[in-house]
């Protein structure tokens, strides 16, 4: 039976310009990854309400055989939510068939956009990747 599963993988970022490896296996019933969403979660010290290019990521499927996505993650300050910024993050369309090798690898890199102040320092945050998967049981 065909279905859709939305799988979330969360990474932690602890320092400026850190590159965090991504390495996991998709579930056994996944047949296709048709979309991806990435959001930053955390309270970031910045005076800017929106940072359009806050981090970047790169993902490979099928044990590095398929490299469909290099993209950016924006940051929107909670206090800066308004009609322009308060919207649902869209789905980045992918169309990656999942074969025998279910390994997803890659990295997320912080781009050093936090406004670092001595008394505060770098604010650790999370990035959530949500993979939209077609499944077959």
């Amino acid at each position, binding site marked *: 039976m065909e*279905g*859709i599963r*939305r799988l*979330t993988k969360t990474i932690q970022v602890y320092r400026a310009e850190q590159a965090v490896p991504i390495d996991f296996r998709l579930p056994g019933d996944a047949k296709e990854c048709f979309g991806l*969403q990435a*959001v930053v*979660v955390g309270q970031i010290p910045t005076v800017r309400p929106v940072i359009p290019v806050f981090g970047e990521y790169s993902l490979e499927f099928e044990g590095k055989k398929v490299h469909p996505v290099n993209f950016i993650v924006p940051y929107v300050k909670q206090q800066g*939510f308004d009609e322009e910024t308060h*919207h649902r993050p869209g789905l980045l369309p992918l169309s990656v068939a999942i074969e025998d090798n279910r390994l997803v690898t890659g990295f997320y890199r912080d781009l050093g956009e936090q406004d670092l102040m001595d008394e505060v320092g770098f604010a650790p945050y999370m990035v959530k990747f*949500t993979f939209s998967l077609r499944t077959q049981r």
Partner: protein
Amino acid sequence: MKNHKFQLIRIGVPSAKASVRFTGETDKRYKRVRGVFVALPSPLLEYGSTLSLKVGGTDIFDEDHDVRLITAGLGVAPNEKFFLFEEFIEAGGAAFEGKFMDAGLEGTSYPYEAKVFLWLVNPEDK
């Protein structure tokens, strides 16, 4: 028979970082869950909050699913606020269960009520 229903699930969130489970049944007069939309009293509360959802025993959203992926701001028209499901999710009185987790960010106040709306339709509606 009506073809649309927006079924409301009310979730009381008592305190910061609360984890609140909810259960229920979809209206049996409607065959399909077409979409979902979460409304919180402040946009701040959406930042980092998660909602898991299972309908009829099928996982729709996993434990770590960010609420921002299933909500929208005031500037979005009501019929466009909903996250639409590509897959056919059978309603028809199916049991649902889920868990809402508050992110506990500074600057928010408690308690509050999270509202989850299920958009139920009959098959002729796409």
